[in-house]
């Protein structure tokens, strides 16, 4: 028997497109942007569409280049440290911005999201439970 306790409970939208979570992203404490991003527990990284980099004043190609493998093939992305704010928590994380302007989705993956917080998902009720490691 194991028991987990959480500080916050978040109701996410009933959406067949996935578990969509609301986050704020920002760089150097200026120009924050709100976005809805998919939770993707199978993704190694947090990936954002390129336009979000432009909106928080990040020059994509100045980041750490990474070739990322997907079921559909490889794509290029660049890593940058940004601040992610989710619910009542915030932290710094390396996330990747897709090089291709037409890259279609943004996802919250393991590094930078799942390895920063504790979460539990009850998908049939669209509920996400959350607490920080601290």
């Amino acid at each position, binding site marked *: 028997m194991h028991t987990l306790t959480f500080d*916050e409970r978040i109701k996410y*939208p009933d959406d*067949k*497109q*996935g578990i969509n979570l*609301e*986050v*704020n992203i*920002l760089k*150097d*404490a*200026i*120009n*924050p*942007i*709100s*976005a*809805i991003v*998919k939770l*993707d527990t*199978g*993704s*190694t*990284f947090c*990936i954002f*569409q390129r*336009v*979000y980099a*432009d*909106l928080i004043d990040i020059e994509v190609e100045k980041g750490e280049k990474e070739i*990322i*493998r*997907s*079921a559909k093939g490889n794509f290029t992305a660049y890593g940058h*440290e940004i601040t992610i*704010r*989710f*619910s*009542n*928590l*915030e*932290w*710094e994380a390396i996330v990747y911005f897709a090089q291709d302007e037409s890259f*279609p*989705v943004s*996802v919250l*993956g393991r590094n930078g999201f799942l390895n*920063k*917080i504790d979460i539990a998902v009850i998908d049939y009720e669209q509920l996400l439970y959350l607490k*920080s*490691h*601290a």
Partner: protein
Amino acid sequence: MMRLQKNRKFYANNTVTKFARFRMNEDIDKRARVNLSYGNSFVNKIEEDEIKWIVSSEELNTVKKFVVDKSIQIPKSFISFVSEITVGIAEGILTHCKENEISAEEFLNGIIEKKKKKVPNIENPSEVRKVAEKLDLNKSLEWLKENRQNHLGKWIILDGNNFIGSGEDPRPFVEKARKDGVKVPFVNFIEVDSESFTGGWL
């Protein structure tokens, strides 16, 4: 009156006064008010024997402008967003300055220098912090639920449930929203419902 004299003596001996000029105004309900010129000219108010730092909105804007103009990265123990510099944050800055016997200007310039040297400015970069204000985009989500079908395949920009614009490029709308004073624009691409998503990248 005794208390007032005590406060006066306290301020005369306080290190803050090295940077400050102040004058007492005794007519406010037995309380003393001190106008304090300190670095960027902050206002300090005394209630009872405690010090309460209060930053006027005008002076707050000076700090904000300074921070934005210089692209300063404020330590996360003080601030989440520049747009959310509050009395509490300013209080944190001032207390830090007071404890270290430096002016607010010196402190802020020090942050700039750290950034130039690319020294990590955040005390615990991996730390997850609690923020005072919980992120709540319910208004934006409600708007999306009602209106998403009209904007399929486009970027939409909202301020809460206020529609700002939609199109193939969100950048001009966001730029305009910020100029109009929107602090945190909501930006989202409206996917076509008929296509499902599968992730799981390596």
